[in-house]
Protein backbone atom coordinates (compact mmCIF):
# COMPACT_ATOMS: atom_id res chain seq x y z
CA UNK A 1 0.00 0.00 0.00
CA UNK A 2 1.22 3.44 -0.82
CA UNK A 3 0.92 6.39 1.54
CA UNK A 4 -2.54 7.79 1.48
CA UNK A 5 -3.90 11.07 2.73
CA UNK A 6 -6.13 10.83 5.73
CA UNK A 7 -9.50 12.03 4.56
CA UNK A 8 -12.34 12.53 6.99
CA UNK A 9 -15.94 11.93 6.06
CA UNK A 10 -16.64 15.53 7.03
CA UNK A 11 -14.09 16.73 4.49
CA UNK A 12 -15.81 14.72 1.79
CA UNK A 13 -19.18 16.21 2.68
CA UNK A 14 -17.73 19.70 2.77
CA UNK A 15 -16.27 19.27 -0.70
CA UNK A 16 -19.57 17.88 -2.00
CA UNK A 17 -21.48 20.87 -0.68
CA UNK A 18 -18.88 23.41 -1.80
CA UNK A 19 -18.75 21.95 -5.29
CA UNK A 20 -22.50 21.81 -5.68
CA UNK A 21 -22.78 25.40 -4.47
CA UNK A 22 -19.96 26.64 -6.67
CA UNK A 23 -21.41 25.21 -9.85
CA UNK A 24 -24.68 27.02 -9.26
CA UNK A 25 -26.66 24.28 -10.96
CA UNK A 26 -28.71 21.35 -9.78
CA UNK A 27 -26.61 18.37 -8.80
CA UNK A 28 -27.32 14.92 -7.39
CA UNK A 29 -26.62 15.73 -3.75
CA UNK A 30 -28.66 13.21 -1.74
CA UNK A 31 -27.21 10.11 -3.36
CA UNK A 32 -23.70 11.54 -3.15
CA UNK A 33 -23.97 12.16 0.58
CA UNK A 34 -25.37 8.70 1.30
CA UNK A 35 -22.28 6.88 0.03
CA UNK A 36 -19.57 9.03 1.65
CA UNK A 37 -18.41 6.55 4.29
CA UNK A 38 -18.55 3.63 1.86
CA UNK A 39 -16.41 5.40 -0.71
CA UNK A 40 -14.07 6.92 1.83
CA UNK A 41 -13.25 3.60 3.49
CA UNK A 42 -12.91 1.98 0.07
CA UNK A 43 -10.48 4.57 -1.29
CA UNK A 44 -8.71 5.12 2.03
CA UNK A 45 -8.21 1.57 3.24
CA UNK A 46 -9.29 -1.05 0.73
CA UNK A 47 -8.72 -0.13 -2.89
CA UNK A 48 -5.26 -0.83 -4.30
CA UNK A 49 -4.59 2.37 -6.20
CA UNK A 50 -2.01 5.09 -6.80
CA UNK A 51 -3.51 8.52 -7.37
CA UNK A 52 -0.13 9.79 -8.61
CA UNK A 53 -0.06 6.93 -11.11
CA UNK A 54 -3.73 6.53 -12.05
CA UNK A 55 -3.07 4.04 -14.82
CA UNK A 56 -0.96 1.76 -12.60
CA UNK A 57 -1.62 -1.64 -14.17
CA UNK A 58 -1.94 -3.48 -10.87
CA UNK A 59 -4.66 -1.26 -9.47
CA UNK A 60 -8.04 -2.44 -8.31
CA UNK A 61 -10.90 -1.00 -10.32
CA UNK A 62 -13.84 0.99 -9.02
CA UNK A 63 -16.95 1.55 -11.12
CA UNK A 64 -19.62 4.03 -10.06
CA UNK A 65 -22.60 2.33 -11.63
CA UNK A 66 -25.00 4.77 -9.94
CA UNK A 67 -23.35 7.39 -12.06
CA UNK A 68 -25.62 10.28 -11.12
CA UNK A 69 -23.83 10.37 -7.74
CA UNK A 70 -20.70 11.55 -9.53
CA UNK A 71 -20.37 14.51 -7.18
CA UNK A 72 -19.49 12.26 -4.25
CA UNK A 73 -17.08 10.31 -6.43
CA UNK A 74 -15.32 13.45 -7.66
CA UNK A 75 -15.00 14.73 -4.10
CA UNK A 76 -13.24 11.49 -3.16
CA UNK A 77 -10.98 11.51 -6.22
CA UNK A 78 -9.99 15.09 -5.49
CA UNK A 79 -9.29 14.50 -1.81
CA UNK A 80 -7.17 11.44 -2.57
CA UNK A 81 -5.10 13.46 -5.02
CA UNK A 82 -6.30 12.56 -8.49
CA UNK A 83 -6.86 16.19 -9.39
CA UNK A 84 -6.63 19.57 -7.75
CA UNK A 85 -9.26 21.96 -6.47
CA UNK A 86 -9.12 24.11 -9.58
CA UNK A 87 -10.04 21.11 -11.67
CA UNK A 88 -12.85 20.18 -9.32
CA UNK A 89 -14.15 23.75 -9.51
CA UNK A 90 -14.95 23.18 -13.19
CA UNK A 91 -17.67 20.69 -12.17
CA UNK A 92 -20.74 21.10 -14.37
CA UNK A 93 -19.35 24.08 -16.22
CA UNK A 94 -19.21 24.35 -19.99
CA UNK A 95 -16.22 22.62 -21.51
CA UNK A 96 -15.36 20.61 -18.40
CA UNK A 97 -14.94 16.85 -18.44
CA UNK A 98 -16.31 16.76 -14.91
CA UNK A 99 -19.99 16.72 -15.71
CA UNK A 100 -23.19 15.41 -14.19
CA UNK A 101 -22.23 11.77 -14.79
CA UNK A 102 -18.84 10.05 -14.86
CA UNK A 103 -16.98 10.33 -18.15
CA UNK A 104 -14.17 7.84 -18.54
CA UNK A 105 -10.84 9.56 -18.07
CA UNK A 106 -8.15 7.32 -16.65
CA UNK A 107 -5.82 10.21 -15.84
CA UNK A 108 -8.47 11.53 -13.47
CA UNK A 109 -9.12 8.11 -11.96
CA UNK A 110 -12.47 7.64 -13.71
CA UNK A 111 -12.52 4.12 -15.09
CA UNK A 112 -15.76 4.16 -17.07
CA UNK A 113 -18.57 6.37 -18.30
CA UNK A 114 -21.83 5.84 -16.48
CA UNK A 115 -25.20 7.50 -16.15
CA UNK A 116 -27.43 4.90 -17.75
CA UNK A 117 -28.35 2.76 -14.76
CA UNK A 118 -27.89 -0.99 -14.64
CA UNK A 119 -24.75 -1.26 -16.73
CA UNK A 120 -21.86 -1.04 -14.28
CA UNK A 121 -22.17 -4.51 -12.80
CA UNK A 122 -21.99 -6.24 -16.19
CA UNK A 123 -18.90 -4.24 -17.03
CA UNK A 124 -17.48 -5.11 -13.62
CA UNK A 125 -18.12 -8.79 -14.26
CA UNK A 126 -16.21 -8.55 -17.50
CA UNK A 127 -13.32 -6.79 -15.81
CA UNK A 128 -13.23 -9.47 -13.12
CA UNK A 129 -13.26 -12.27 -15.69
CA UNK A 130 -10.44 -10.53 -17.55
CA UNK A 131 -8.37 -10.37 -14.37
CA UNK A 132 -9.19 -13.96 -13.56
CA UNK A 133 -8.01 -15.16 -16.97
CA UNK A 134 -4.63 -13.55 -16.38
CA UNK A 135 -4.61 -14.65 -12.74
CA UNK A 136 -4.06 -11.06 -11.68
CA UNK A 137 -4.19 -10.13 -8.03
CA UNK A 138 -6.74 -7.39 -8.55
CA UNK A 139 -10.36 -6.84 -7.67
CA UNK A 140 -13.34 -4.94 -9.00
CA UNK A 141 -15.68 -2.87 -6.86
CA UNK A 142 -18.97 -1.69 -8.30
CA UNK A 143 -21.19 0.80 -6.49
CA UNK A 144 -24.89 0.50 -7.23
CA UNK A 145 -27.95 2.23 -5.90
CA UNK A 146 -30.95 0.36 -4.57
CA UNK A 147 -33.09 2.23 -7.10
CA UNK A 148 -30.70 1.08 -9.78
CA UNK A 149 -31.34 -2.51 -8.70
CA UNK A 150 -34.78 -2.10 -10.31
CA UNK A 151 -33.03 -2.57 -13.64
CA UNK A 152 -33.25 -6.16 -14.84
CA UNK A 153 -29.74 -6.15 -16.26
CA UNK A 154 -28.37 -6.08 -12.70
CA UNK A 155 -29.90 -9.48 -12.10
CA UNK A 156 -28.60 -10.96 -15.32
CA UNK A 157 -25.12 -10.20 -14.05
CA UNK A 158 -25.98 -11.34 -10.55
CA UNK A 159 -26.99 -14.82 -11.71
CA UNK A 160 -24.05 -15.26 -14.03
CA UNK A 161 -21.43 -14.00 -11.58
CA UNK A 162 -22.71 -16.27 -8.84
CA UNK A 163 -22.85 -19.29 -11.10
CA UNK A 164 -19.30 -18.62 -12.28
CA UNK A 165 -18.06 -17.96 -8.76
CA UNK A 166 -16.42 -14.70 -9.81
CA UNK A 167 -14.93 -13.77 -6.47
CA UNK A 168 -12.91 -10.81 -7.73
CA UNK A 169 -16.20 -8.99 -8.13
CA UNK A 170 -17.55 -7.06 -5.17
CA UNK A 171 -20.79 -5.10 -5.45
CA UNK A 172 -21.75 -2.41 -2.99
CA UNK A 173 -25.38 -1.35 -2.84
CA UNK A 174 -25.88 2.10 -1.37
CA UNK A 175 -29.36 1.31 -0.12
CA UNK A 176 -30.66 4.79 0.66
CA UNK A 177 -34.24 3.66 0.03
CA UNK A 178 -35.08 6.39 -2.47
CA UNK A 179 -35.10 6.93 -6.20
CA UNK A 180 -35.91 10.03 -8.25
CA UNK A 181 -39.65 10.01 -7.62
CA UNK A 182 -39.56 9.08 -3.96
CA UNK A 183 -39.42 5.87 -1.94
CA UNK A 184 -38.02 2.82 -3.70
CA UNK A 185 -41.25 0.87 -3.37
CA UNK A 186 -40.06 -2.07 -5.45
CA UNK A 187 -38.57 -3.69 -2.36
CA UNK A 188 -40.92 -2.19 0.19
CA UNK A 189 -43.04 -5.04 1.45
CA UNK A 190 -43.00 -8.48 -0.06
CA UNK A 191 -39.39 -8.73 -1.10
CA UNK A 192 -36.22 -7.28 0.36
CA UNK A 193 -33.11 -6.38 -1.54
CA UNK A 194 -30.63 -8.38 0.51
CA UNK A 195 -32.86 -11.42 0.22
CA UNK A 196 -32.86 -11.18 -3.56
CA UNK A 197 -29.07 -11.08 -3.69
CA UNK A 198 -28.98 -14.06 -1.35
CA UNK A 199 -31.38 -15.95 -3.58
CA UNK A 200 -29.10 -15.20 -6.50
CA UNK A 201 -26.30 -16.99 -4.71
CA UNK A 202 -24.14 -14.08 -3.61
CA UNK A 203 -22.24 -13.75 -0.39
CA UNK A 204 -24.40 -11.04 1.18
CA UNK A 205 -23.10 -8.79 3.94
CA UNK A 206 -25.65 -6.40 5.41
CA UNK A 207 -24.27 -3.39 7.23
CA UNK A 208 -24.99 0.13 8.37
CA UNK A 209 -23.43 2.07 5.53
CA UNK A 210 -22.40 4.95 7.77
CA UNK A 211 -20.54 2.80 10.31
CA UNK A 212 -16.88 2.78 9.34
CA UNK A 213 -16.04 -0.30 11.42
CA UNK A 214 -18.80 -2.31 9.80
CA UNK A 215 -17.73 -1.12 6.37
CA UNK A 216 -14.12 -2.06 7.03
CA UNK A 217 -15.11 -5.52 8.26
CA UNK A 218 -17.40 -6.05 5.28
CA UNK A 219 -14.65 -5.30 2.77
CA UNK A 220 -12.29 -7.63 4.63
CA UNK A 221 -14.90 -10.39 4.60
CA UNK A 222 -15.54 -9.81 0.91
CA UNK A 223 -11.85 -10.22 0.14
CA UNK A 224 -11.65 -13.37 2.23
CA UNK A 225 -14.63 -14.96 0.47
CA UNK A 226 -13.21 -16.86 -2.47
CA UNK A 227 -16.20 -19.03 -3.33
CA UNK A 228 -17.98 -16.35 -5.31
CA UNK A 229 -18.97 -12.72 -5.57
CA UNK A 230 -19.84 -10.62 -2.53
CA UNK A 231 -22.38 -7.87 -2.23
CA UNK A 232 -22.31 -5.40 0.61
CA UNK A 233 -25.87 -4.20 1.09
CA UNK A 234 -25.31 -0.99 3.01
CA UNK A 235 -28.31 0.64 4.59
CA UNK A 236 -27.79 4.38 4.33
CA UNK A 237 -29.62 7.67 4.72
CA UNK A 238 -30.00 9.73 1.60
CA UNK A 239 -28.60 13.21 2.23
CA UNK A 240 -26.68 11.92 5.27
CA UNK A 241 -24.84 14.51 7.33
CA UNK A 242 -26.99 17.53 6.53
CA UNK A 243 -30.00 17.34 8.76
CA UNK A 244 -32.57 18.98 6.49
CA UNK A 245 -31.47 16.87 3.52
CA UNK A 246 -31.63 13.54 5.34
CA UNK A 247 -34.30 11.26 3.87
CA UNK A 248 -35.67 14.35 2.13
CA UNK A 249 -35.92 13.55 -1.55
CA UNK A 250 -36.15 17.20 -2.53
CA UNK A 251 -32.38 16.89 -2.41
CA UNK A 252 -32.16 14.05 -4.89
CA UNK A 253 -31.27 16.60 -7.56
CA UNK A 254 -31.31 20.23 -6.63
CA UNK A 255 -29.16 23.28 -6.36
CA UNK A 256 -27.62 24.79 -3.31
CA UNK A 257 -28.43 28.46 -3.04
CA UNK A 258 -26.54 30.94 -0.84
CA UNK A 259 -29.07 30.57 1.94
CA UNK A 260 -29.02 26.80 1.71
CA UNK A 261 -25.24 26.83 1.60
CA UNK A 262 -25.08 28.61 4.94
CA UNK A 263 -27.46 26.05 6.36
CA UNK A 264 -25.32 23.23 5.02
CA UNK A 265 -22.24 24.58 6.76
CA UNK A 266 -24.16 24.96 9.99
CA UNK A 267 -25.47 21.39 9.68
CA UNK A 268 -21.95 20.09 9.13
CA UNK A 269 -20.65 22.10 12.11
CA UNK A 270 -18.40 24.22 9.90
CA UNK A 271 -17.57 27.87 10.29
CA UNK A 272 -19.65 30.25 8.19
CA UNK A 273 -17.90 31.59 5.11
CA UNK A 274 -17.59 35.36 4.89
CA UNK A 275 -18.81 37.13 1.80
Amino acid sequence: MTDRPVVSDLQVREVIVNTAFNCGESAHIGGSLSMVELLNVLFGEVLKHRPAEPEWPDRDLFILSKGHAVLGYLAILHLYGYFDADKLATFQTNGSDLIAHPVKKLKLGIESSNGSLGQGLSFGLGLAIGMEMKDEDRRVYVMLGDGECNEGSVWETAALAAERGTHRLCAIVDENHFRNDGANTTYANKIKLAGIWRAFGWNVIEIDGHDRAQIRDAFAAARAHEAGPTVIVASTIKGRGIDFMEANNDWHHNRITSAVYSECRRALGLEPVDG
Partner: protein
Amino acid sequence: MTDTPIRTMGGFADARDHRHEALTSRTYGRALLAEARADPRIVCLGADLSQPTETFLFRDELPDRFFMMGIQEANMVGAAAGMARCGDVAFAHSFCVFITRRVYDQVAMQVAYPRLPVKLAGFIPGLTTPLGVSHQATDDIALMRALPHMTVIEPSGPEQVAAVVRAAVDHPGPVYLRMQVASARPDETTPLKPFEIGRGQVLREGEDVALLACGMMVEAALSAADRLADRGLSVTVANMASLKPYDTDLAVSLARRHRIVVTAENHSVIGGLGSMTAEALMLAGAAPRFGMVGVQDVFAEGATTDYLAEHYGLTPHHIVQKVLSLHAL
Protein backbone atom coordinates in the same frame (compact mmCIF):
# COMPACT_ATOMS: atom_id res chain seq x y z
CA MET B 1 -10.76 22.37 6.37
CA THR B 2 -10.20 21.83 2.66
CA ASP B 3 -8.51 24.00 0.11
CA THR B 4 -11.54 23.97 -2.14
CA PRO B 5 -12.10 27.56 -3.16
CA ILE B 6 -15.42 29.09 -2.24
CA ARG B 7 -16.85 31.27 -4.94
CA THR B 8 -19.61 33.04 -3.12
CA MET B 9 -20.46 34.72 -6.39
CA GLY B 10 -21.52 31.37 -7.73
CA GLY B 11 -24.51 30.84 -5.53
CA PHE B 12 -28.00 32.15 -5.67
CA ALA B 13 -29.52 34.67 -3.31
CA ASP B 14 -32.83 32.90 -3.07
CA ALA B 15 -33.72 29.38 -2.04
CA ARG B 16 -36.21 28.35 -4.67
CA ASP B 17 -36.43 24.72 -5.57
CA HIS B 18 -34.88 24.52 -9.00
CA ARG B 19 -36.10 20.99 -9.40
CA HIS B 20 -39.72 22.03 -9.62
CA GLU B 21 -39.19 25.53 -10.87
CA ALA B 22 -37.87 24.23 -14.15
CA LEU B 23 -41.10 22.43 -14.81
CA THR B 24 -43.55 25.25 -14.87
CA SER B 25 -45.00 24.60 -18.30
CA ARG B 26 -46.41 21.09 -17.89
CA THR B 27 -47.73 21.40 -21.40
CA TYR B 28 -47.45 17.71 -22.10
CA GLY B 29 -48.70 16.62 -18.68
CA ARG B 30 -51.79 18.78 -19.03
CA ALA B 31 -52.46 17.62 -22.57
CA LEU B 32 -52.22 13.94 -21.65
CA LEU B 33 -54.43 14.42 -18.64
CA ALA B 34 -57.04 16.24 -20.71
CA GLU B 35 -57.13 13.35 -23.18
CA ALA B 36 -57.29 10.79 -20.38
CA ARG B 37 -60.21 12.49 -18.67
CA ALA B 38 -62.19 12.06 -21.87
CA ASP B 39 -60.90 8.64 -22.87
CA PRO B 40 -60.90 5.85 -20.27
CA ARG B 41 -58.72 3.67 -22.49
CA ILE B 42 -55.69 5.82 -21.74
CA VAL B 43 -53.24 4.51 -19.13
CA CYS B 44 -49.97 6.06 -18.05
CA LEU B 45 -46.79 4.13 -17.25
CA GLY B 46 -43.70 5.65 -15.67
CA ALA B 47 -40.13 4.64 -14.91
CA ASP B 48 -39.24 6.87 -11.94
CA LEU B 49 -39.34 10.18 -13.83
CA SER B 50 -42.77 11.54 -12.93
CA GLN B 51 -41.53 15.11 -12.52
CA PRO B 52 -39.42 15.46 -15.65
CA THR B 53 -42.04 13.72 -17.78
CA GLU B 54 -44.83 15.78 -16.19
CA THR B 55 -46.82 12.62 -15.49
CA PHE B 56 -47.22 13.43 -11.81
CA LEU B 57 -50.30 15.35 -12.95
CA PHE B 58 -51.79 12.11 -14.26
CA ARG B 59 -50.66 10.19 -11.18
CA ASP B 60 -52.30 12.64 -8.80
CA GLU B 61 -55.62 12.89 -10.62
CA LEU B 62 -56.07 9.42 -12.13
CA PRO B 63 -54.08 7.14 -9.81
CA ASP B 64 -56.03 4.03 -10.84
CA ARG B 65 -54.71 4.37 -14.39
CA PHE B 66 -51.17 5.32 -13.42
CA PHE B 67 -48.49 2.63 -13.11
CA MET B 68 -45.10 3.35 -11.56
CA MET B 69 -42.91 0.53 -12.81
CA GLY B 70 -39.68 1.59 -11.10
CA ILE B 71 -36.38 2.18 -12.83
CA GLN B 72 -36.96 -0.54 -15.40
CA GLU B 73 -37.74 0.78 -18.84
CA ALA B 74 -37.62 -2.56 -20.67
CA ASN B 75 -40.15 -4.02 -18.28
CA MET B 76 -42.32 -0.93 -18.68
CA VAL B 77 -42.40 -1.22 -22.46
CA GLY B 78 -43.20 -4.91 -22.43
CA ALA B 79 -45.96 -4.38 -19.89
CA ALA B 80 -47.33 -1.43 -21.86
CA ALA B 81 -47.62 -3.74 -24.85
CA GLY B 82 -49.54 -6.29 -22.79
CA MET B 83 -51.91 -3.65 -21.50
CA ALA B 84 -52.40 -2.31 -25.01
CA ARG B 85 -53.30 -5.80 -26.12
CA CYS B 86 -56.11 -5.72 -23.55
CA GLY B 87 -57.57 -2.56 -25.05
CA ASP B 88 -55.67 0.17 -23.25
CA VAL B 89 -53.98 3.05 -25.01
CA ALA B 90 -50.72 2.89 -23.13
CA PHE B 91 -48.50 5.96 -22.79
CA ALA B 92 -45.05 4.93 -21.54
CA HIS B 93 -42.65 7.62 -20.35
CA SER B 94 -38.96 8.22 -19.90
CA PHE B 95 -36.14 10.27 -21.33
CA CYS B 96 -35.72 9.91 -25.10
CA VAL B 97 -32.57 7.81 -24.74
CA PHE B 98 -34.19 5.30 -22.41
CA ILE B 99 -37.55 4.96 -24.21
CA THR B 100 -35.79 4.20 -27.52
CA ARG B 101 -32.18 3.02 -27.45
CA ARG B 102 -32.32 1.28 -24.10
CA VAL B 103 -35.48 -0.69 -24.92
CA TYR B 104 -35.10 -1.06 -28.65
CA ASP B 105 -35.76 -4.77 -28.93
CA GLN B 106 -38.76 -4.62 -26.61
CA VAL B 107 -40.14 -1.80 -28.76
CA ALA B 108 -39.46 -3.75 -31.95
CA MET B 109 -40.88 -7.10 -30.87
CA GLN B 110 -43.58 -6.21 -28.33
CA VAL B 111 -44.81 -2.90 -29.75
CA ALA B 112 -43.95 -2.27 -33.40
CA TYR B 113 -44.21 -5.80 -34.79
CA PRO B 114 -47.70 -6.45 -33.34
CA ARG B 115 -48.63 -2.82 -34.12
CA LEU B 116 -50.01 -2.15 -30.65
CA PRO B 117 -51.28 1.23 -29.44
CA VAL B 118 -48.29 1.96 -27.22
CA LYS B 119 -47.26 5.61 -27.20
CA LEU B 120 -43.62 6.06 -26.28
CA ALA B 121 -43.26 9.53 -24.82
CA GLY B 122 -39.64 10.68 -24.60
CA PHE B 123 -38.14 13.86 -23.17
CA ILE B 124 -34.86 15.76 -23.47
CA PRO B 125 -34.21 15.24 -27.19
CA GLY B 126 -30.76 15.70 -28.66
CA LEU B 127 -28.44 18.09 -26.90
CA THR B 128 -30.98 19.75 -24.62
CA THR B 129 -29.46 18.47 -21.38
CA PRO B 130 -26.26 19.03 -19.40
CA LEU B 131 -26.43 15.43 -18.15
CA GLY B 132 -24.03 14.17 -20.80
CA VAL B 133 -23.94 11.45 -23.42
CA SER B 134 -25.89 8.96 -21.29
CA HIS B 135 -28.87 11.29 -21.45
CA GLN B 136 -28.47 12.85 -24.90
CA ALA B 137 -30.66 11.28 -27.59
CA THR B 138 -28.97 11.97 -30.90
CA ASP B 139 -29.87 8.69 -32.57
CA ASP B 140 -33.46 8.13 -31.49
CA ILE B 141 -35.14 9.37 -34.68
CA ALA B 142 -32.91 7.09 -36.73
CA LEU B 143 -33.66 4.10 -34.51
CA MET B 144 -37.38 4.57 -34.30
CA ARG B 145 -38.00 5.37 -37.93
CA ALA B 146 -36.23 2.17 -38.94
CA LEU B 147 -39.00 0.17 -37.27
CA PRO B 148 -41.95 -0.81 -39.47
CA HIS B 149 -45.35 0.36 -38.16
CA MET B 150 -43.77 3.07 -36.02
CA THR B 151 -44.91 6.69 -36.22
CA VAL B 152 -42.35 9.30 -35.17
CA ILE B 153 -43.33 12.84 -34.19
CA GLU B 154 -41.32 15.76 -32.89
CA PRO B 155 -43.40 18.87 -32.18
CA SER B 156 -41.78 22.24 -32.79
CA GLY B 157 -42.42 23.32 -29.22
CA PRO B 158 -45.09 23.60 -26.53
CA GLU B 159 -47.46 25.29 -28.96
CA GLN B 160 -47.77 22.02 -30.87
CA VAL B 161 -47.75 19.52 -28.01
CA ALA B 162 -51.50 19.31 -27.41
CA ALA B 163 -52.18 18.63 -31.08
CA VAL B 164 -49.49 15.98 -31.17
CA VAL B 165 -50.83 14.19 -28.10
CA ARG B 166 -54.30 14.19 -29.65
CA ALA B 167 -52.90 12.71 -32.87
CA ALA B 168 -51.07 10.02 -30.91
CA VAL B 169 -54.27 9.01 -29.11
CA ASP B 170 -56.26 8.91 -32.35
CA HIS B 171 -53.64 6.95 -34.26
CA PRO B 172 -54.35 3.24 -33.88
CA GLY B 173 -50.72 2.04 -33.82
CA PRO B 174 -47.45 2.71 -32.00
CA VAL B 175 -46.10 6.24 -31.81
CA TYR B 176 -42.85 7.75 -30.60
CA LEU B 177 -43.17 11.31 -29.31
CA ARG B 178 -39.92 13.24 -29.06
CA MET B 179 -40.52 16.22 -26.81
CA GLN B 180 -38.72 18.93 -24.96
CA VAL B 181 -39.97 20.17 -21.62
CA ALA B 182 -40.49 23.87 -22.08
CA SER B 183 -39.56 26.28 -19.34
CA ALA B 184 -42.60 28.40 -20.09
CA ARG B 185 -46.06 27.74 -21.35
CA PRO B 186 -46.96 29.29 -24.69
CA ASP B 187 -48.55 32.59 -23.78
CA GLU B 188 -52.10 33.30 -24.79
CA THR B 189 -51.10 35.27 -27.84
CA THR B 190 -49.21 32.34 -29.33
CA PRO B 191 -51.52 30.50 -31.69
CA LEU B 192 -51.54 26.79 -31.02
CA LYS B 193 -50.14 24.90 -33.98
CA PRO B 194 -52.15 22.18 -35.64
CA PHE B 195 -50.67 18.79 -36.37
CA GLU B 196 -51.59 15.95 -38.66
CA ILE B 197 -49.65 12.70 -38.97
CA GLY B 198 -47.87 12.62 -42.32
CA ARG B 199 -48.11 16.36 -42.91
CA GLY B 200 -45.49 19.08 -42.62
CA GLN B 201 -46.39 22.71 -42.25
CA VAL B 202 -44.99 25.67 -44.15
CA LEU B 203 -44.49 28.49 -41.66
CA ARG B 204 -42.98 31.04 -43.97
CA GLU B 205 -42.96 31.30 -47.76
CA GLY B 206 -39.91 32.26 -49.81
CA GLU B 207 -38.39 31.59 -53.19
CA ASP B 208 -34.67 30.87 -53.01
CA VAL B 209 -34.08 28.61 -50.04
CA ALA B 210 -36.20 26.00 -48.26
CA LEU B 211 -35.34 25.19 -44.63
CA LEU B 212 -36.89 21.94 -43.39
CA ALA B 213 -36.68 21.64 -39.63
CA CYS B 214 -38.05 19.76 -36.65
CA GLY B 215 -38.21 20.33 -32.91
CA MET B 216 -36.20 23.18 -31.48
CA MET B 217 -34.53 23.74 -34.84
CA VAL B 218 -37.79 25.15 -36.23
CA GLU B 219 -37.25 28.30 -34.23
CA ALA B 220 -33.59 28.35 -35.25
CA ALA B 221 -34.64 28.02 -38.90
CA LEU B 222 -37.06 30.94 -38.59
CA SER B 223 -34.30 33.03 -37.07
CA ALA B 224 -31.89 31.95 -39.82
CA ALA B 225 -34.51 32.92 -42.41
CA ASP B 226 -34.57 36.46 -41.04
CA ARG B 227 -30.80 36.71 -41.24
CA LEU B 228 -30.76 35.33 -44.76
CA ALA B 229 -33.43 37.81 -45.78
CA ASP B 230 -31.03 40.53 -44.67
CA ARG B 231 -28.61 39.11 -47.21
CA GLY B 232 -31.18 39.18 -49.98
CA LEU B 233 -32.23 35.54 -49.89
CA SER B 234 -35.91 34.68 -49.76
CA VAL B 235 -36.48 31.70 -47.47
CA THR B 236 -39.25 29.17 -46.95
CA VAL B 237 -39.39 27.45 -43.57
CA ALA B 238 -41.30 24.23 -42.96
CA ASN B 239 -41.95 22.43 -39.68
CA MET B 240 -41.57 18.73 -40.50
CA ALA B 241 -42.92 17.48 -37.16
CA SER B 242 -44.21 14.27 -38.72
CA LEU B 243 -40.92 12.45 -39.17
CA LYS B 244 -42.57 9.16 -39.97
CA PRO B 245 -44.61 8.98 -42.06
CA TYR B 246 -42.63 11.79 -43.58
CA ASP B 247 -44.30 14.44 -45.70
CA THR B 248 -42.44 13.40 -48.83
CA ASP B 249 -44.82 15.33 -51.09
CA LEU B 250 -44.09 18.57 -49.30
CA ALA B 251 -40.34 17.96 -49.19
CA VAL B 252 -40.23 17.18 -52.90
CA SER B 253 -42.43 20.07 -53.93
CA LEU B 254 -40.28 22.46 -51.90
CA ALA B 255 -37.16 21.01 -53.49
CA ARG B 256 -38.61 21.62 -56.94
CA ARG B 257 -39.45 25.24 -56.15
CA HIS B 258 -36.22 26.24 -54.39
CA ARG B 259 -32.64 26.23 -55.54
CA ILE B 260 -31.29 25.35 -52.09
CA VAL B 261 -32.70 22.93 -49.49
CA VAL B 262 -31.22 22.67 -46.00
CA THR B 263 -32.48 20.46 -43.19
CA ALA B 264 -31.99 21.29 -39.50
CA GLU B 265 -32.38 18.84 -36.64
CA ASN B 266 -31.33 18.43 -33.02
CA HIS B 267 -30.15 14.90 -33.85
CA SER B 268 -27.37 13.16 -35.73
CA VAL B 269 -27.27 13.86 -39.44
CA ILE B 270 -27.11 10.08 -39.81
CA GLY B 271 -30.57 8.62 -40.11
CA GLY B 272 -32.66 11.60 -39.11
CA LEU B 273 -34.45 14.46 -40.84
CA GLY B 274 -31.56 15.16 -43.18
CA SER B 275 -31.27 11.53 -44.22
CA MET B 276 -35.00 11.05 -44.77
CA THR B 277 -35.17 14.23 -46.83
CA ALA B 278 -32.20 13.23 -48.95
CA GLU B 279 -33.78 9.85 -49.57
CA ALA B 280 -37.09 11.40 -50.54
CA LEU B 281 -35.51 13.91 -52.92
CA MET B 282 -33.21 11.40 -54.57
CA LEU B 283 -36.01 8.91 -55.10
CA ALA B 284 -38.17 11.64 -56.65
CA GLY B 285 -35.37 12.86 -58.88
CA ALA B 286 -35.38 16.31 -57.31
CA ALA B 287 -31.87 17.75 -57.19
CA PRO B 288 -31.54 21.04 -55.33
CA ARG B 289 -28.31 22.11 -53.71
CA PHE B 290 -28.66 20.24 -50.46
CA GLY B 291 -27.21 20.52 -46.98
CA MET B 292 -27.82 19.04 -43.53
CA VAL B 293 -27.46 20.87 -40.23
CA GLY B 294 -27.34 18.63 -37.20
CA VAL B 295 -25.02 16.76 -34.89
CA GLN B 296 -22.20 15.19 -36.84
CA ASP B 297 -21.01 11.62 -36.26
CA VAL B 298 -19.88 12.29 -32.68
CA PHE B 299 -20.89 11.82 -29.08
CA ALA B 300 -21.30 15.22 -27.44
CA GLU B 301 -20.65 16.17 -23.81
CA GLY B 302 -22.42 17.63 -20.82
CA ALA B 303 -22.93 21.39 -20.94
CA THR B 304 -25.66 23.98 -21.31
CA THR B 305 -27.89 23.71 -24.35
CA ASP B 306 -26.62 27.04 -25.72
CA TYR B 307 -23.02 25.91 -25.39
CA LEU B 308 -23.72 22.56 -26.99
CA ALA B 309 -25.72 24.13 -29.83
CA GLU B 310 -22.78 26.40 -30.53
CA HIS B 311 -20.17 23.63 -30.37
CA TYR B 312 -22.10 20.98 -32.22
CA GLY B 313 -23.56 23.14 -34.95
CA LEU B 314 -27.20 23.69 -34.01
CA THR B 315 -27.60 27.48 -34.08
CA PRO B 316 -29.23 29.82 -36.59
CA HIS B 317 -25.70 30.88 -37.49
CA HIS B 318 -24.85 27.34 -38.55
CA ILE B 319 -27.94 27.20 -40.75
CA VAL B 320 -27.02 30.54 -42.32
CA GLN B 321 -23.46 29.39 -42.97
CA LYS B 322 -24.68 26.16 -44.56
CA VAL B 323 -27.06 28.04 -46.85
CA LEU B 324 -24.42 30.60 -47.83
CA SER B 325 -21.87 27.92 -48.63
CA LEU B 326 -24.40 26.26 -50.96
CA HIS B 327 -25.38 29.62 -52.41
CA ALA B 328 -21.74 30.33 -53.29
CA LEU B 329 -21.29 27.08 -55.22
